[in-house]
């Protein structure tokens, strides 16, 4: 009996008397703020607890021995300490250090707008590009509603912060694209060649961009092609301007997508009056192909290709003798192919290599004169990324450009003008996160231009600081250089690169579906190309200069009004430059002082319809009146445009989309062309540059065929 008692009491002792130890304390972060909900536990046991709203915790354990106490919390480094148990009441004061988490950390935002799906922080979504009224599904059209851009309606290009259209460079997956806009009649807007639906994300930088991107004086537009395999589907579009068919096929470890499009504006121009006298309305055939394939776990191959053929014939009245008309017949052939390989070596190292080839051939007949403009370009690039630690990452690489350009008048083939450019560049950049609140990006880029025999070294620097949970400030500085425009450098190959310095300060606040952003900048232009006689190489110099300064404001809100998403952009620009044939520093003709856009989108669930509207305003643009003493001293009237669009979901896979630009038919004047010579009264005649038509009306039916019947083209409209 005694034995039984002993056994029982032993049992009781082992069960209850496993010496309970009490562990308590407080968990705080480096700023002394309590950490709420931290997990505090004895490793390899169930014993532990969570910290309360004041960061306090307390628990008992019956564990014994030399153990470890671990404290974990999302976004903080795991804390571990040895603990001897059982023990007297343990009271601990624990400070957790914040882990640098790239997803939560501050991001470089000076000068940058990104659109994509991955991050909830994007200012714009990919979808926004295609649903913006007035943009007619053109990437630059949609980006033109962002601050920092100027409305230059007769070109369709992106003019950024006092920069010319060619100062914005387009890159696909980091690789350069030459001639990214389709050819168009003089003073009518060209469209971007690349369909927004082929891209997953867009990053549009209005200044201060990374050392990875060179040969762009004002802006870098980086398009990232899709890499998530879509499901197999076929899309058919029937439009008032033509038709297209596209097919996406999922294949083993990848996908293939192709799109063929034919457009012909003849029927539309017959139905709707045009201001221009078209002999043959623009028509084009365009193909887009895309392939992505994971070769194995480490390597992914991507190919993107675009080809197009376009053609039109238009009559243009002369300025003085308006009864005489010049006949212009233009045909353009374009091919672009881009191949890249991305290899993830391990958690730390990755390598990206790509090559692109562009070929553009444009034949123009003006009356009996024949001109041919050809450009071929190759771009090779390799980027190596080294994520040294959570705090530090390095990126470096090299690239080589070959560009062969020629311009000839077929009547006088001896007078061929051309550019034969070779350019080798190296760049290195470092991202250093001092904490989740502070990041510095410093980079340097060196370029050797074989044609000019010139070496350029340009530094870039961006710093961003998180001022609060939802707000941050960034500053950026950078030097930029770019070889001048083809039509100038072809006259004199030895012209040096044009240069610009950017200084940017930015404040951004994002909260609950609302974004506010304000950015001020100063740009200094130097080495701009100047000439006094356009055909005389000896008159060409790099003696031009200029400046641009301004403020950009952006506000976006998709919370306040239910179902309504809207954004407002305002840009103030003050710029002058002395370049080309300017007699002295003056505001260039593309620079309007005030630009404003309001974009709104409203989804009416009951009607299965999305409505969109865009109002754009630009203050008057300078133009030169040769009859006056002062250069570029006059201004056009203000520009106004209200565009509307609507998409109606007829069936789950059929969408009807309609859009109208310039609903009120404002007779906008972009500028004035003047006659080369004075008329009989000794006066130069000015002719306004107007819109090609008061408005553009578009109607289309978009049909999607796939296994899952609910898939449609809504995300791409």
């Amino acid at each position: 009996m005694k034995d039984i008692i002993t056994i029982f009491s032993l049992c009781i002792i082992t069960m209850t008397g496993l010496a309970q130890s009490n562990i308590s304390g407080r968990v705080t972060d480096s700023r002394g703020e309590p950490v709420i909900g931290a997990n505090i536990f004895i490793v390899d046991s169930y014993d532990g607890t969570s910290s309360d709203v004041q960061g306090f915790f307390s628990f008992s354990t019956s564990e014994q021995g030399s153990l470890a106490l671990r404290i974990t919390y999302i976004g903080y480094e795991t804390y571990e300490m040895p603990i001897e148990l059982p023990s007297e009441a343990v009271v601990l004061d624990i400070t957790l250090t914040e882990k640098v988490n790239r997803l939560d950390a501050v991001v470089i935002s000076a000068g940058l707008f990104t659109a994509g799906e991955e991050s909830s922080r994007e200012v714009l979504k990919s979808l926004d590009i295609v649903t913006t009224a007035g943009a007619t599904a053109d990437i630059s059209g949609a980006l033109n509603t962002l601050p920092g851009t100027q409305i230059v309606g007769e070109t369709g290009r992106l003019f950024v912060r006092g920069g010319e259209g060619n100062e914005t460079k387009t890159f696909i997956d980091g690789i350069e694209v030459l001639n990214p806009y389709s050819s168009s009649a003089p003073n009518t807007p060209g469209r971007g060649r690349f369909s927004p639906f082929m891209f997953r994300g867009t990053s549009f930088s209005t200044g201060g961009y990374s050392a990875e991107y060179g040969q762009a004086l004002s802006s870098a537009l980086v398009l990232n092609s899709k890499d998530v395999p879509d499901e197999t589907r076929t899309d058919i579009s029937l439009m008032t301007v033509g038709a297209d068919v596209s097919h996406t096929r999922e294949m083993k470890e990848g996908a293939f997508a192709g799109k063929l499009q034919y457009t012909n504006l003849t029927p539309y121009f017959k139905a709707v009056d045009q201001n221009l006298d078209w002999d043959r309305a623009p028509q084009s055939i365009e193909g887009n192909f895309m392939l992505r394939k994971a070769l194995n776990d480490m390597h992914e191959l991507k190919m993107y290709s675009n080809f197009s053929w376009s053609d039109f014939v238009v009559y243009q009245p002369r300025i003085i003798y308006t009864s005489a008309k010049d006949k212009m017949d233009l045909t353009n052939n374009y091919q672009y192919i881009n191949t890249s390989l991305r290899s993830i070596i391990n958690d730390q190292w990755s390598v990206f290599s790509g090559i692109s080839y562009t070929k553009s051939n444009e034949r123009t007949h003006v009356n009996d004169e024949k001109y041919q403009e050809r450009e071929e370009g190759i771009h090779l690039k390799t980027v190596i990324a080294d994520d040294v630690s959570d705090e530090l990452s390095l990126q470096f690489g090299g690239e080589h450009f070959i560009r062969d350009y020629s311009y000839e008048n077929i009547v006088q083939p001896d007078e061929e003008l051309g550019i034969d450019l070779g350019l080798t560049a190296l760049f290195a950049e470092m991202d250093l996160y001092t904490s989740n609140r502070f990041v510095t990006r410093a980079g340097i880029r060196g370029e050797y231009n074989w044609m000019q025999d010139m070496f350029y070294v340009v530094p870039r620097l961006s710093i961003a600081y998180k001022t609060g949970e939802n707000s941050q400030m960034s500053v950026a500085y950078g030097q930029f250089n770019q070889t001048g425009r083809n039509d100038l450098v072809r006259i004199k190959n030895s012209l040096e690169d044009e240069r610009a310095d950017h200084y940017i300060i930015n404040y951004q606040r994002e909260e609950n579906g609302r974004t506010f952003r304000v950015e001020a900048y100063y740009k200094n232009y130097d080495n701009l190309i100047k000439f006094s006689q356009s055909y005389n190489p000896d008159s060409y110099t790099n003696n031009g200069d200029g400046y641009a300064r301004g403020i950009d404001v952006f506000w976006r809100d998709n919370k306040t009004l239910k179902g309504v998403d809207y954004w407002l952009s305002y840009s103030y620009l003050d710029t002058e430059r002395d370049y080309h044939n300017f007699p002295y520093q003056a505001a260039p003709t593309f620079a309007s002082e005030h630009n404003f856009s309001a974009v709104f989108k409203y989804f009416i669930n009951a009607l299965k319809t999305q409505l969109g509207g865009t109002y754009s305003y630009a203050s008057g643009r300078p133009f030169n009146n040769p009859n006056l003493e002062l250069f570029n001293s006059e201004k056009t009237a203000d520009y106004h445009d209200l565009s509307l669009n609507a998409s109606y979901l007829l069936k789950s896979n059929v969408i009807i989309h309609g859009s109208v630009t310039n609903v009120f038919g404002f007779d906008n004047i972009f500028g004035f062309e003047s006659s080369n010579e004075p008329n009989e009264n000794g006066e130069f005649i000015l002719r306004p540059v107007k819109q090609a038509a008061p408005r553009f009306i578009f109607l289309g039916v978009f049909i999607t065929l796939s296994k899952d019947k609910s898939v449609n083209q809504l995300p791409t409209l």
Partner: protein
Amino acid sequence: MRTIVLIATMLFAAHLSQAAPSKYEEVMKENIEKLYESRTIEEYQTVINKFDRIAAKETDKWGPLYYAGFGYIMMATNADEVSMKDKYLDLALERINAGKAIAPKESEIIALEGFVHMIRVTVDPATRGAQYSGLSMQAFSKALEINPDNPRALYLMGQMEFGTAKFFGADTSEACTKIQAAVSKFDVYTPDSPLAPAWGKGGAIAASEMCK
């Protein structure tokens, strides 16, 4: 005397052999109950922490990871900010992937993965629908392939189809058939262990009400 010692030893041995699993089961049961009762982010975090502690010890069991993942999904649905929702869903996916590594053929875990993608869609259907609705439907189909009787996978699939149809203004009858079938499956569903997932019936019934 010897018999008593023997009995006592046997009892002790029985106790020992029982101790490990029963403690796991006991703690899990208690915590699963707490999880179902949780309403606030703080409550969920406390329960998830406990599951994380269990998971850290029981490295061969998918259960604690499953429930930690489920807890984070619930936190995501409770959070206001989109960035917080995404963060919780990332944490849920982390737990789910760890669970999948232990039990790659577990229908319940795969269904839960589909649930994560589904919640991502609800955050911003217009932008994310194209990418995540496909992923979630794939996961639900796979879960049903492994276990056609998994009522949760069927219910979530029906719910997803219902939401998609509603978004595009299409016919919801196909989705409703699935939800109805899920309700009947919940009625006859017998969990194979006391720790098996038991949630979803209320939601399925509520969804079937919307179909009427």
